[in-house]
């Protein structure tokens, strides 16, 4: 499985170095980007995104709302670091840990974040993943619609529907409609109640 990518924004070099090492030591976790301030982070996020971001709480809070928004939209989880015991559980953060807590807590927060991200990763089929269009067609097939009906519903020709179906079968290795239905349910494209 692909590792979960982290961005670290921390101005104190020794702390940044330590955080980076701790991330790399956790299973399925890797550091994608290290920057020395929250501002640099925003620059980075103009072109890139990262799954988890570790940032100092006070630096983050000092940013303009717009800038905060920009960070939030380019990362899925934020771990905030504080240098005292008081500021805890601010809502935009996945975890808040204090530098006074010791290494264990930071390790734990990182593992928790990686675990959370991996869940999303696993739910997506790898390699031969179906396109969004194919998933729509797959749903229609499992609901028992004919090629003609599917074509009309999706504004495409019946011929295109048949091509999609062939591609779906090829990608999944499943030929029959009932087989495709099981796939669609197991992968949460449709609910079991819709097909029972």
């Amino acid at each position, binding site marked *: 499985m692909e590792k979960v990518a982290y961005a670290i924004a921390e101005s104190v070099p020794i702390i940044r170095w330590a955080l980076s090492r701790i991330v790399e030591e956790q299973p399925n976790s890797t550091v994608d980007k290290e920057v020395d301030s929250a501002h640099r982070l925003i620059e980075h996020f103009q072109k890139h995104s990262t799954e988890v971001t570790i940032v100092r709480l006070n630096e983050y809070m000092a940013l303009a709302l717009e800038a905060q928004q920009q960070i939030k939209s380019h990362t899925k989880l934020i771990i905030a670091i504080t240098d005292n015991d008081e500021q805890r559980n601010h809502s935009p953060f996945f975890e808040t840990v204090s530098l006074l807590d010791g290494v264990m807590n930071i390790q734990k927060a990182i593992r928790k974040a990686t675990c959370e991200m991996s869940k999303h990763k696993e739910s997506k089929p790898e390699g031969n993943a179906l396109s969004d269009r194919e998933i729509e067609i797959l749903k229609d097939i499992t609901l028992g619609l004919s090629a003609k009906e599917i074509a009309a519903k999706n504004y495409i020709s019946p011929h295109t529907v048949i091509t999609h179906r062939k591609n779906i079968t090829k990608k*999944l*290795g*499943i*030929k*029959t409609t*009932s*087989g495709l*239905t*099981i*796939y669609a*349910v*197991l*992968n949460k494209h449709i609910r*079991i109640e819709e*097909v*029972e």
Partner: protein
Amino acid sequence: MHVARDTKMGDVVHHNHTILTIMLRFNIKLGFSDRTVDEVCDQHNVNTAFFLEIVNAFLDPHYFPSKHLRTFSVSLIIDYLLKTHYYYLTHKIPAIECMIEQLIKENQGESDLRLIRKFFKEYKDEFINHLKREDEVVFPYALKVESAAHNNEQHAYLVEQMTKYSMIDYLNEHDNIEEKLFDLKNILIKYIPPISNQALCIHIIDELFSLEKDLHDHSRIEEKVLGPKVMELEKQLLARSETTN
């Protein structure tokens, strides 16, 4: 390994024990001592030459003596096909069904797995219909053709029947009952949620692979041996009816 008349039956089993399922169909019982294939077949009233061809075709996917197999009588071939049907219905299908039930029972939390049971039930119905049609329509017809051809019987009614249904129709309608099996295998291998009893899943997959191989061999006999052989007899009957008319 190519099995011959004087090969020891025990050696055949040691070479590939899945051959035992073939012996079961011929009603050959275990306890071979040091007897050869010929001796064991004799003892159980099995046609050794026919047994050898079936066993060798089973062991080597590239060995399929369809011409040679056609030298055996229709009734002998059908007898084996019927026994194979019986073996599927009494052993293969119930074994898989039972394991799927266990899979559902052990994973009550994974309610989506119920669909696998439904899927297999559908497959079983299709499968039974397929066998039933062969047992009740196709094979009796083939036997009638053979008996008419051999006994020089009055066969006007058969020739009449041939215009409505003959072996060529069977070969055209004969569908591939392996497709759903293929899907089920792939669902278990690629898409099943990570349940704890992996051994059970592996057992099911194992059974599916073995049924698939068996069905492949079985259909091959129906299509490449029985079909052409009966069509040959049909031709003889037609020719004869033309000369008498």
